[in-house]
């Protein structure tokens, strides 16, 4: 498979390394935000969706508890929330995060690229679904639903 930002996989040794640091600090009652972020960043790049979901929860917590003045950390969380959601095929949620980001930083090329990639995956998944189901009627229905989903996304 072509490697890109949405299917690149964290090595298990890295995941373990950052997981260990997280649990040590947690047990000591001294959990650093940086440690939580590093662990979450590895989790959302896992091959397992359970890990990705866990990473998303950590990022949401970080986002909720972040100092309002700390804009630069917030953009990190939003970016990886978009990425994590896209990797578990929660495309609509993923696009909500990229859109939220682009509202604050409209010209951000990195996030615009991620958004394009998500939309492309959304489309391929839709087409694959159609191919599996077969039948012209279903295909038409699929395209309409997909078009609707995209239009809904755009109008928000």
């Amino acid at each position, binding site marked *: 498979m072509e490697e890109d930002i949405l299917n690149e996989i964290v090595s298990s040794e890295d995941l373990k390394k950052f997981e260990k640091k997280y649990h040590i600090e947690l047990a000591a009652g001294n959990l650093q935000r940086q440690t939580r972020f590093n662990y979450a960043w590895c989790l959302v790049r896992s091959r397992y969706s359970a890990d990705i979901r866990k990473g998303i929860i950590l990022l949401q917590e970080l986002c909720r508890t972040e100092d309002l003045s700390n804009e630069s950390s917030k953009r990190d969380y939003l970016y990886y929330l978009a990425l994590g959601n896209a990797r578990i095929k929660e495309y609509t949620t993923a696009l909500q995060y990229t859109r939220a980001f682009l509202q604050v930083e409209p*010209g951000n090329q990195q996030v615009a690229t991620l958004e394009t990639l998500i939309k492309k995956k959304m489309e391929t998944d839709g087409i694959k679904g159609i191919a599996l189901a077969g039948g012209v009627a279903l295909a038409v229905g699929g395209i309409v639903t997909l078009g609707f989903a995209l239009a809904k996304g755009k109008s928000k």
Partner: protein
Amino acid sequence: MSAPPYSYSYIFKYIIIGDMGVGKSCLLHQFTEKKFMSDCPHTIGVEFGTRIIEVCGQQIKLQIWDTAGQERFRAVTRSYYRGAAGALMVYDTTRRSTYNHLSSWLTDTRNLTNSSTVIFLIGNKSDLKDQRDVAYEEAKQFADENGLMFVEASAKTGDNVEEAFVETAKKIFQRIQDGRLDLNATESGVQHKPSQPGRTTLTDQSPKNTCTC
């Protein structure tokens, strides 16, 4: 469902590293899109870009991981070094501090990549001539002492950008031909994509060591 035939015969993995604000993402963007981003925000984590180039008659796909320069990403971006065939190490010719940090970037690279990884030093922002803070000769000497390839480049004008990426690929390809880079080794940073049966490529016929570039 069968995979589409590859339009390239090798994949080389690259990383781009260096202090924040030296123009790593702008260099990547200039190389992949041939455009200059004038307002380039700080990269979040890592960015990714690809481009297919031709080296010695071979189509080579470069998969480039552009790492964020900010300290808070450092722990995790280190994991992208592993398995890089090429490392572009960037400093800013107008900011001496970014040059002074090169030895620590180099140590990291040497520790985290393998011995066959090609390291290319880029002094970016060469267009800002009157703001120069690091002499060409000084950087050249540093590069020579450490066995690095080196150019001064400008992501803004595009000067020497293509050269840096392509020369790195040529060097990697040379190392494959020399046998210094083992294609079968894990984490060599190179994948060979054998041509499809029934599809002939020019390279199948050519002897292995005729590359003169």
